C-alpha cells in the first residue's frame, strides 16, 4: 500500500508513515481544531496497512512536543490498534521521544505502555 505523508502545519504534526519499510513517524505539535477529522483518516490508513499482516517488526517513532486533549484521545485509539497488531503476530516497537524537562509527555507514554502492554515501549530522552 502507498506510504502516507502529511506535512506539519502550525497546529498539526508531521505524519510520515512509510508502510514499505514498516516505519511510522509522528512529529511536532498536535492541536487541530477537529482532532477526529485529522486522525480518523490516519488511523484508517494504519488499519488497512495492518489488515491480515503478521510476522512484521514495526517501528513507531513518536516525537510530539505537545498534544491537546482531543488529540490525546485519538492517539490512544491509534496505540490500541497497534497493540492489537502485536496480538496478531507482529512486533511493534514504540520509540517515545520526550523532553527530559517535561514529565507530562513521558507520563503519557507510560500510560500507553501500561494500557497497551504488548507494545515494546522504549522511552528516549531528547538531548
Amino acid at each position: 500500500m502507498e506510504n502516507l505523508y502529511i506535512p506539519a502545519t502550525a497546529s498539526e504534526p508531521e505524519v510520515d508513515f512509510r508502510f514499505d519499510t514498516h516505519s511510522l513517524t509522528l512529529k511536532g505539535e498536535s492541536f487541530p481544531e477537529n482532532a477526529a477529522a485529522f486522525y480518523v483518516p490516519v488511523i484508517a490508513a494504519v488499519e488497512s496497512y495492518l489488515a491480515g499482516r503478521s510476522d512484521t517488526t514495526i517501528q513507531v517513532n513518536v516525537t510530539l512536543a505537545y498534544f491537546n486533549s482531543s488529540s490525546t484521545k485519538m492517539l490512544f485509539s491509534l496505540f490500541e490498534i497497534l497493540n492489537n497488531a502485536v496480538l496478531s503476530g507482529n512486533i511493534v516497537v514504540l520509540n517515545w521521544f520526550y523532553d527530559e524537562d517535561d514529565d507530562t509527555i513521558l507520563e503519557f507514554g507510560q500510560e500507553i505502555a501500561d494500557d497497551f502492554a504488548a507494545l515494546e515501549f522504549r522511552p528516549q530522552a531528547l538531548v
Partner: protein
Amino acid sequence: MTEHTLRVNDMLQSEINSFRELERKCNVIFYYSGLFSQNIVAAMAEALKQRLAHSGNKAATQRKVFSTFIEMAQNVIHYSADTFSDVDQQDDELRHGAVWIGESEGKFFIVCGNPVAASRAPRMRDRLNALQSMSQEEIKAAYKTQLRSENEAGSKGAGLGFLTVARDASEPIEFHFDEQPDGKTAMFYLKAKF
C-alpha cells in the same frame, strides 16, 4: 499644529495612558478579545510560545501554560454561545470570546471568558465545583478514567478539556458565571494559575 490637532493629540495621549495604566495594574502580558478561529488561536499560540521561551520558566511550566491556553482558546472556538457558525459545526468555527494572560509575582495566570447558554451553566458549575475540590492525584485519576471512556454527546473534544486545565494548573482552578440580563446567556470565566 492647530489648536484642534493639539487637543485631539492630548486626548489620544490620555486614552493611551489610561489603557497602559490598566494594563500595568492588571499585570497583562497578553490580552485578546474578539473572534476566535483556529487560525487566530494558532497565531496567538506562536506569540505566546515566544514570550514563554524568554520568560526564564522551566520547560514543564512553559508547556503547562501553553497547554492551558490552547484548551481554553479551543473551548471558546467550540462552545462560545456568541457564534458566527452553526452550533453543531465542527470545522472552520468562528466564535466570540476573550483571553487574558498575566504575570503576577513571577507566576503566570490565564483567564478566559465567553458567553454560554444559561441552561448549560448548572452542569458546568457542578463539574467545575467537583474539580475544585479534587487533589492532584484525584485529578490525574479522573483524567485517566475519562481518557478510556466514550465521548459525551455534545462534546467536540474528548471531555478532557477542564481536566487538562485542572491537571496543569498549580492551584485549584477558579471560575465565575455572570448571568446576563437577557436571562438566556451567562458570561463564563475560568482562571488557572501556574
